[in-house]
C-alpha cells in the first residue's frame, strides 16, 4: 500500500467535502442542534400529554342494586388519588354500554345482582370500550383500585372482570389506527423522496435543466407538472401501503389467533385514502422545492434526509401518544395528517378539523410549489456559486486555528472580519450544543451557580472568543453604544408592557400545562429555599439580559443583518432565541420577545435598549413571583383583564414609536 497516495486521496476528499457548506450544515447542525432540539421538544410534548392524561378524571357509573354495597364501592372508587369520579348524575346512574360507546361516560362498573348468594370475592364487571383511550384508562384505574383493596396475599374483596364493548370491526380499526396512519404518512413521504430528487437535482446534474429552461414554458407550469408527477408516485405508494397493511394486519391476526379476532373496517380504511392525496401533494411539493435547491443528486439526498426525519418524528409521537386533533395540532404538517387518518380509522373524525387539516395541507403544499417555481425562475439556478463559501470556510478555519497561522484567513489577513450570516448560524450552533450538552446539566446540578457559569462564562464568553477571533472589539460586536434617552424611555415602556401581552398571548395560543407553569414558578421562587430577591433578579433578569442579548442581539443579529432585511433578521434571531429556550410551551412568546428585542436593538442602533427591555421583562415577573402576585391575574375579571391588556398595548406601541423616532433622529436605524 502506498501510504502517501492514500493520504493524498484522503486529504483531497475530506477537503472537498468539508468545503461544501450544505454538507457541513447537515453533518454538524442536524446531529448536534436539530436532533437534540427535536428530542427535547418531543419529550416536553410527551410529558405535557402524560401530565394532562394523568390529571384527567375518569367518569364512571356504578350499577349495584344493593345500596350498602354501592356506597362502599363508590367511596372506594371516589377516594382521592384514584383519578376516578363516580357520577352522581341520576340519568347516568344506571348507564349502559351505549353511554360508554357514545362517550357520555368512560366506563360502567357493574356488580352482579346475585352477589349476596355468592361466596368469596364480590364479582365486579367493568364495561368499557378498549378502543377509546379514556375508557381504557378508566378500566385500568378501576381494576387497579379494586385489586389493591387488600394487601398482597390477602383474599381479594372484588373479582374484577372486564368486558369491552368494541366489536371486531372496531378493534380492527383501532389496531390499524395505531400503525396505519404513521406508515401511510411515512411511506407517502418516502414515495416522494427519490422521484423528487431525480426530477430536480438529477435534471440539473444530467445537464437537461438548461435545455428545459430555454423552452417557453412558465416556471409555475413546469413545477406544477413536476410536483404532480412526484405526487402521483407518492400517492401510489400511499395507497398500496394502505391496502397491503390492512390485509397484512387482518391475515396476521387470523394466523396468530387461529380464528378472526378482528375485522378490517374497509370503508374506514378506504376513507383514510382521503389523506393520501393532500399528503402526496404536500410531500411532493416540499421535496421538489428542496431538491430544486440542490446542485447534485448527492446534495439533494443530504438536504432531504433531515427534512424526512423532521417530518417523521412529530408524526411518530403524535401517532403513538394519542394526541387529539385540535387547536394548533390541526396545522402541523404531517402530524395533522397522521391524526386525521387515525380518527378516520376509528370513525371519530369530524368535518371541521378534517377540512382544516386538508385545506392547510394543500395550502402548505401550494406555498412549497410557489417557492419551487420561484426558484426555477431565478437565474441563480444556473449561475449559483457558493459566493460566500470562501468567507465562511476561511472563518471556520480561522476559528480553529491561530489568526497568525500560515494560510489562515487569507482573504482578510489580520483585518477585522466583518460579521456574516454564516458566522451567526455557526455561533448559534456552538452555543446550542454547549447549552444542550453542558449548560442544562450545570443548571440541573445547581441552578444559580450553573446559570451564572453558563451565561457569563458560556454565552458571553463565547461572544468574547468570537470577537477575538474576528479581530474585533467586544463593544463593536455587541454594538454597545450609548443610546439616545428616548430609545431608553421607549425600551422601558416595551419592557414593562411586554410580559403582560406575551403572557396573555401564550395563554390564548398555546396554554402550557399546569406542571410547566409550576416549574417556572419554582424556578423563580423555589419552595423551601430562602433566596433573596436581589439574587433572583440578578441571576434571572440581569444576567440573561446581558449575556443572552450579547449573543443574540450582538453577534447573531448583526451577522444575520449582513445578509437579510431588518424584518427577516429580526424574525430569524427571534426564532433562534425561542429555540434556545428549549421549551415548546414558551416557544411562541419567547420568539415574539426575541423579535421585539431584535427590532429594538436594530432600530435604536445599540444593544443597551434591548438589554433594558429584557431586564424589565424578566425582572417584573420575578418580583411578582417573589411576592406571590404572579397568580393574581387568574383572579381578575374579564373586564379588568381587557383593561390591563389595553393599557399594556398602548405602552407597547408608545414604546416602540419612541424607539423608532430615536433611531431615526440619530440615523442609526438598521445598524449592522
Amino acid at each position, binding site marked *: 500500500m502506498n501510504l502517501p497516495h492514500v493520504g493524498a486521496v484522503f486529504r483531497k476528499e475530506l477537503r472537498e467535502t468539508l468545503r461544501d457548506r450544505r454538507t457541513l450544515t447537515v453533518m454538524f447542525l442536524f446531529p448536534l442542534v436539530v436532533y437534540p432540539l427535536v428530542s427535547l421538544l418531543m419529550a416536553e410534548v410527551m410529558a405535557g400529554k402524560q401530565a394532562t392524561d394523568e390529571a384527567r378524571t375518569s367518569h364512571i357509573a356504578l350499577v349495584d342494586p344493593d345500596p350498602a354495597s354501592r356506597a362502599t364501592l363508590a367511596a372506594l372508587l371516589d377516594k382521592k388519588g384514584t383519578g376516578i369520579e363516580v357520577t352522581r348524575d341520576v340519568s347516568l346512574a344506571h348507564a349502559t354500554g351505549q353511554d360508554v360507546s357514545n362517550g357520555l361516560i368512560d366506563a360502567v362498573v357493574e356488580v352482579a345482582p346475585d352477589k349476596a348468594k355468592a361466596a368469596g370475592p364480590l364479582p365486579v364487571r367493568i364495561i368499557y370500550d378498549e378502543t377509546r383511550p379514556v375508557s381504557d384508562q378508566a378500566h385500568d384505574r378501576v381494576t387497579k383500585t379494586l385489586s389493591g383493596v387488600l394487601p398482597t396475599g390477602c383474599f381479594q374483596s372484588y373479582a374484577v372482570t372486564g368486558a369491552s364493548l368494541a366489536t371486531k370491526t372496531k378493534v380492527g380499526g383501532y389496531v390499524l389506527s395505531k400503525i396505519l396512519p404513521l406508515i401511510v404518512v411515512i411511506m407517502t413521504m418516502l414515495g416522494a423522496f427519490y422521484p423528487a430528487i431525480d426530477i430536480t437535482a438529477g435534471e440539473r446534474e*444530467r445537464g437537461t435543466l*438548461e435545455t428545459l429552461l430555454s*423552452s*417557453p*414554458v*412558465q416556471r409555475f407550469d413546469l413545477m406544477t407538472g413536476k410536483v404532480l408527477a412526484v405526487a402521483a408516485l407518492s400517492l401510489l405508494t400511499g395507497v398500496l401501503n394502505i391496502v397491503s397493511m390492512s390485509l397484512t394486519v387482518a391475515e396476521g391476526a387470523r394466523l396468530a389467533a387461529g380464528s378472526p379476532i378482528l375485522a378490517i373496517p374497509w370503508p374506514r380504511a378506504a376513507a383514510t385514502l382521503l389523506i393520501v392525496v393532500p399528503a402526496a401533494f404536500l410531500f411532493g411539493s416540499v421535496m421538489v422545492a428542496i431538491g430544486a435547491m440542490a446542485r447534485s443528486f448527492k446534495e439533494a439526498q443530504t438536504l432531504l434526509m433531515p427534512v424526512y426525519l423532521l417530518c417523521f418524528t412529530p408524526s411518530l409521537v403524535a401517532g403513538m401518544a394519542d394526541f387529539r386533533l385540535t387547536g394548533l395540532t390541526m396545522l402541523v404538517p404531517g402530524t395533522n395528517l397522521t391524526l386525521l387518518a387515525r380518527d378516520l380509522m376509528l370513525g371519530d373524525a369530524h368535518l371541521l378539523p378534517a377540512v382544516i387539516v386538508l385545506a392547510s395541507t394543500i395550502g402548505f403544499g401550494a406555498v412549497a410549489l410557489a417557492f419551487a417555481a420561484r426558484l426555477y425562475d431565478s437565474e441563480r439556478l444556473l449561475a449559483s456559486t457558493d459566493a460566500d463559501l470562501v468567507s465562511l470556510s476561511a472563518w471556520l478555519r480561522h476559528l480553529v486555528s491561530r489568526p497568525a497561522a500560515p494560510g489562515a484567513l487569507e482573504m482578510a489577513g489580520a483585518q477585522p472580519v466583518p460579521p456574516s450570516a454564516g458566522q451567526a448560524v455557526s455561533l448559534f450552533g456552538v452555543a446550542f450544543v454547549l447549552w444542550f450538552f453542558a449548560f442544562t446539566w450545570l443548571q440541573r446540578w445547581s441552578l444559580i451557580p450553573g446559570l451564572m457559569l453558563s451565561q457569563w462564562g458560556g454565552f458571553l464568553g463565547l461572544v468574547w472568543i468570537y470577537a477575538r477571533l474576528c479581530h474585533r472589539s467586544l463593544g463593536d460586536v455587541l454594538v454597545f453604544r450609548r443610546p439616545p434617552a428616548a430609545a431608553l424611555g421607549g425600551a422601558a415602556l416595551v419592557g414593562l408592557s411586554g410580559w403582560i401581552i406575551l403572557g396573555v398571548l401564550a395563554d390564548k395560543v398555546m396554554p402550557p400545562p399546569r406542571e410547566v407553569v409550576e416549574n417556572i414558578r419554582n424556578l423563580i421562587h423555589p419552595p423551601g429555599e430562602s433566596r433573596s430577591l436581589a439574587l433572583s433578579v440578578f441571576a434571572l433578569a440581569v444576567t440573561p439580559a446581558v449575556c443572552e442579548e450579547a449573543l443574540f442581539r450582538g453577534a447573531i443579529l448583526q451577522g444575520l443583518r449582513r445578509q437579510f432585511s431588518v424584518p427577516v433578521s429580526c424574525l430569524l434571531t427571534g426564532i433562534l432565541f425561542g429555540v434556545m429556550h428549549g421549551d415548546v410551551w414558551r416557544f411562541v412568546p419567547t420568539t415574539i420577545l426575541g423579535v421585539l428585542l431584535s427590532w429594538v436593538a436594530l432600530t435604536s442602533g445599540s444593544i443597551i435598549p434591548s438589554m433594558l427591555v429584557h431586564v424589565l421583562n424578566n425582572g417584573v415577573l420575578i418580583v411578582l413571583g417573589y411576592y406571590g402576585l404572579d397568580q393574581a391575574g387568574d383572579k381578575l375579571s374579564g373586564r379588568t383583564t381587557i383593561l390591563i391588556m389595553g393599557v399594556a398595548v398602548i405602552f407597547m406601541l408608545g414604546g416602540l414609536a419612541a424607539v423608532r423616532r430615536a433611531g431615526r433622529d440619530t440615523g442609526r436605524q438598521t445598524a449592522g
Partner: protein
Amino acid sequence: MPDPSAVTVERLKKRFGQRTAVDGLSFSVAAGEIYGLLGPNGAGKTTTLRVLAGLLRPTEGVARIDGVDVGADPRQAQRHLGFLTGTTGLYGRLTAREVLVYFGTLQDMPRPRIAARIDQLTDALDLRAILDRRCEALSSGQKQRISVARAVIHDPPVLILDEPTVGLDVLASRFLREYIGAERARGKAVIFSTHYLAEAELLCDRIGLLYQGALLAEGHPRDLRVQAGDATSLEEAFLRLVTNLVAA
C-alpha cells in the same frame, strides 16, 4: 423604421454580484447570417448566449430576438429561438422521438405538426436509425444530432448554438457545420460560439471577438485579419488584437 435584424444586442451588461461578465456589448445578426462569438474562457460568450436564450436577465441594455425584448418577455422570445447548450441536454431514459415530442409540446405545437416536423428533421439530420432508441444508448455524435433536432423542433428563425462541435469527431463536426450552413440558406439567423477559430473562419459570415465581456473587434474573418495587421490566421489576429489592447 422596423429593425430588420433577427437579433439585436444593445449595450448589454450582465453582472453577477461584483463581477461583470458582459460589459456593454452591442451587435446584431441579420436573417440568413451566421455570427460567430469568439473569445477565451471567461470572455462572456456563454453568458451572452444565456441572456439571449432568456435564461439570464440583462443587468443593463437590451437584447431582442426577432423583435421581442428578451429581458421583458423571455418566454415569448423563447418561441422565436432554438438554443443548443454546451451539453447535449437529453433525457437518457426517453427515446429520441419522445424527447422531440416533449419539446415540441412545450413549444405549443399540435401533435400532427410535431410529427411532420420530426419527419423533416429525420431526413435533414439522418435520424431514422436512432429515433426510437433511448438517448442514453446513443453515441456523442448521435446525441448531438438529436439535440440539434430538439433545438429546432419548432423551426425558429434564430438559432443560438453554444460550442456545438465540442467533443465531436471530424465527421460529426462536419455534418453539423453543413447543417448549420443549410439553415443559413433557409434564412435563419445563427449565433455560434466556439473555441475553434478555424471552424469559425470556415462557417461564419461575421465574427465578434469578445474579451473580458466587451467586443474587441467585429467583422468578416478576412477583415479581422486585415484589422490585426494582415494576420495569417484568425487565431493570430485574435492574439495580436488582445496584445494591443493589453499594451494600450
